[in-house]
């Protein structure tokens, strides 16, 4: 999934600019604050593991960065583009793999990708899309309706869709979910490829081991606030210290 036509047409982001910059970010849903006081700066090309228990706000943060949700408070900039005014520029550069992927049950895998391609304003031939499906191990299922897919297959298709426009910032929300051994290897390969290509990756996962293995930096969320933000090595050391205290 290297240089796609989409990248060539995109206006270049201002150079030397952080991939993600948030100041005082807060998001409220009804009576609860999912995120509060989030100050982050993620330079381009970094791989960040976003850790935290359920309900800590990981998914919400990723969705806000993808501009699928509006922050209640604070500012968000992605590659220098403010989310309130330049949302479109952000959406051209971001790919989000979420737990509820935008797939349509009555369409086939190929048709779903065709739709995504049209929505991303890409000119991709069917052969290219089939190649993409082959990359995620769904070559045989290209003409099958998503309604018949297993969770693992849906996850693979979702990954293919999220990567279709060759985004600079890749947001993965529990990418290892529902995948078998082959699927897990697939995601690992993707991550390797993304890092090699210098993309910025934020990986939200319960799979702490995987997160620590792939990422240079760890951000841990607790009840909507940042509990830890630093290099993986330090996190691992602190975690083992804590574990040691309980032993």
């Amino acid at each position: 999934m290297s240089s796609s036509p989409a990248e060539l047409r995109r206006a270049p982001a201002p150079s030397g600019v952080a991939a993600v910059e948030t100041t005082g970010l807060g998001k409220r849903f009804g009576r609860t604050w999912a995120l509060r006081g989030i100050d982050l700066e993620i330079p381009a090309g970094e791989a960040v593991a976003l850790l935290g228990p359920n309900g800590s706000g990981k998914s919400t943060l990723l969705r806000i960065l993808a501009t699928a949700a509006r922050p209640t408070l604070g500012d968000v900039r992605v590659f220098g583009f403010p989310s309130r005014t330049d949302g479109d520029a952000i959406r051209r550069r971001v790919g989000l793999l979420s737990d509820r992927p935008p797939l349509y049950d009555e369409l086939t895998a190929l048709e779903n990708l065709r739709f995504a391609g049209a929505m991303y304003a890409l000119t991709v031939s069917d052969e290219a899309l089939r190649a993409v499906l082959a990359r995620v191990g769904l070559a045989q299922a290209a003409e099958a309706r998503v309604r018949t897919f297993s969770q693992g297959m849906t996850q693979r298709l979702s990954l293919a869709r999220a990567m279709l426009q060759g985004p600079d910032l890749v947001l993965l929300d529990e990418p290892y979910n529902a995948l078998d051994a082959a699927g897990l290897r697939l995601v690992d390969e993707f991550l390797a490829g993304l890092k090699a290509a210098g993309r910025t990756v934020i990986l939200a996962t319960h799979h702490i081991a995987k997160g620590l293995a792939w990422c240079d930096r760890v951000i841990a969320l607790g009840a909507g606030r940042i509990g830890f933000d630093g290099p993986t090595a330090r996190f691992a050391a602190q975690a083992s210290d804590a574990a040691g205290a309980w032993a």
Partner: protein
Amino acid sequence: MAIERLGKLAGLVALPALAGGLYLGLVWAPPDAMMGDVQRIMYVHFPSWIATGLAYLTAFVCSLLYLVRRTPRLDYLAHAGVEVGVLFNATGLITGSIWGRPTWGVWWTWDPRLTTTAIMLVMFAGYLIVRAFIEDPDARARVAALVGIVGFVNVPIVYMSVRWWRTLHQVQSSPSTVHPDMVVALRVMMVTFALLACYLMTRRYELARLEGEAERAEAAPHG
């Protein structure tokens, strides 16, 4: 709070003005040549429309501004505007109906203006109902603003269509000659109702603001 003080001022003027205006309309002004004392209901009926229009217009403008600025206060004021508007809208319809009964013998005629205002009432009552079904204050404000804007913008075409619908068949009934004293009383009542609308809107706004702030404060995290 400037808006709340202005509101109280409006109220201070409106309430005695209401008393004065009612005296002028119900006692001082002469009865209508043809309809007699029944016609005096117009001193409440017509001014209701001034108040309705003012309130709905406030709601419309605040809704537009809310979508751009997203300040909760604009939502509170829009909500207040619709509620007060619905109140005066209903008053206008009821007084219109009461006036119609002895005049034309029926509780309801499909008079274009009456019909349009009935449709307006349904539209803005819909606004209030939709609000009741959304718990998240930000989503509620946004959805309500959109409902309010689209509803308001459609009023002219609703009026046009209903008027063509009714007047291609029958002639519009028009009010008879108006005595100058009646005009005085009517004008006083119109200004009074406008002030009354402002007063009620600011009170309702204050209530909405207090409720909204309490709602948002509940959500504030510890520390």
